[in-house]
């Protein structure tokens, strides 16, 4: 058997192989046209590359935005919940419920007339002050005015109580004492 002829038809032809080629050649592929008219064009993977890259960019931007919002919203409530105020804010806003005011409002029994406000309310209050874009001196004046108004209102309230008790016939000493306190 001629190996060369079997491999690449080179060299001297092998009669047996030639005979087989001749006989089996009857079964050889007969070219037929391929009809592709009804076929849909195959998709090109490169056609989707720009769309995929745009979608990926948008997705990354969305994730980054969501993470940023999450971090931002987490830190603010944590500060409020713990009642932590920045030193700057504490400096700017005087505490209207300080000891002096409470002493002034203390009744004859020695109990404060009102409970001190919780810290959370102070923060809310400070926020409204911040939002009004007032200067430090204006803010100070406003707070003092508010304090005076509150004292005036309390005095008025005490006087009304006194008048009410007088109308009901209570003892004058009692009234005097109450007046002293007021």
């Amino acid at each position, binding site marked *: 058997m001629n190996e060369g002829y079997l491999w690449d038809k080179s060299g001297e032809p092998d009669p047996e192989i030639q005979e087989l080629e001749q006989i089996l050649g*009857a079964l*050889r592929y007969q070219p037929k046209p391929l009809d592709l008219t009804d076929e849909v064009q195959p998709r090109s993977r490169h056609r989707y590359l720009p769309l995929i890259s745009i979608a990926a960019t948008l997705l990354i931007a969305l994730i980054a935005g969501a993470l940023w919002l999450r971090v931002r919203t987490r830190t603010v409530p944590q500060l409020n919940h713990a009642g932590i105020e920045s030193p700057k804010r504490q400096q700017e806003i005087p505490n209207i419920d300080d000891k002096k005011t409470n002493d002034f409002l203390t009744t004859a029994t020695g109990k404060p007339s009102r409970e001190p406000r919780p810290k959370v309310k102070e923060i809310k209050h400070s926020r409204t002050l911040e939002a009004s874009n007032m200067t430090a001196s204006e803010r100070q004046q406003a707070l003092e005015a508010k304090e005076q108004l509150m004292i005036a209102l309390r005095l008025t309230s005490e006087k009304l109580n006194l008048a009410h008790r007088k109308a009901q016939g209570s003892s004058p000493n009692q009234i005097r004492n109450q007046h002293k306190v007021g």
Partner: protein
Amino acid sequence: MFELEATADMLLPTPQAKASTDTPETRIEVVLVKAVLDGDRDSFGRLYELYAPMVHGILLARIPRSEVDDLVQDIFLHAFRKLHTLRDWAAFGPWIAMIARNRAMDFYRRTKETVEVTEDLRSTDMQTSRANEILELIRALPEAYRETLILRLVEGMTGPEIAARTGLTPASVRVNLHRGMKQLRKKLGYAEGL
């Protein structure tokens, strides 16, 4: 000396096959596949012309001859639809060869081997009748040998061409041809003696 039995593994492309397929023809494949994916249908016609004989030979080694022509068309239409899934454009040949082998297996699954191969022998032409007889002998050979022998003797491809188009190494093709031819000679002698 002992001879190794031919197995289906011998039909699998090996890493070395990549180097063997790096021929001008494979570069043409890359250009043609790219052109088809860019919308040029005529380029697929060129791929069809190049590879239809190989697909025909692969099918002829496995299924009845009367079914082969229709299945060749069917395989190429399937390949056209799925061409975008082909990652390595230079591997169009091994890819379509694998589709052809799978389709041949599917054919027998569907028909549950009810198709009589002997129907091919009903031929009035003497030469075709003799050809069908030899074809039956080749089909009785191990899978690796029969496919390579049919591509060589029926489709008229050379060993290097078979290696380049199927993705097999030239060494494997050479061994398959040599051992297959040896076994066929024995069988032909036995057939001639009847």
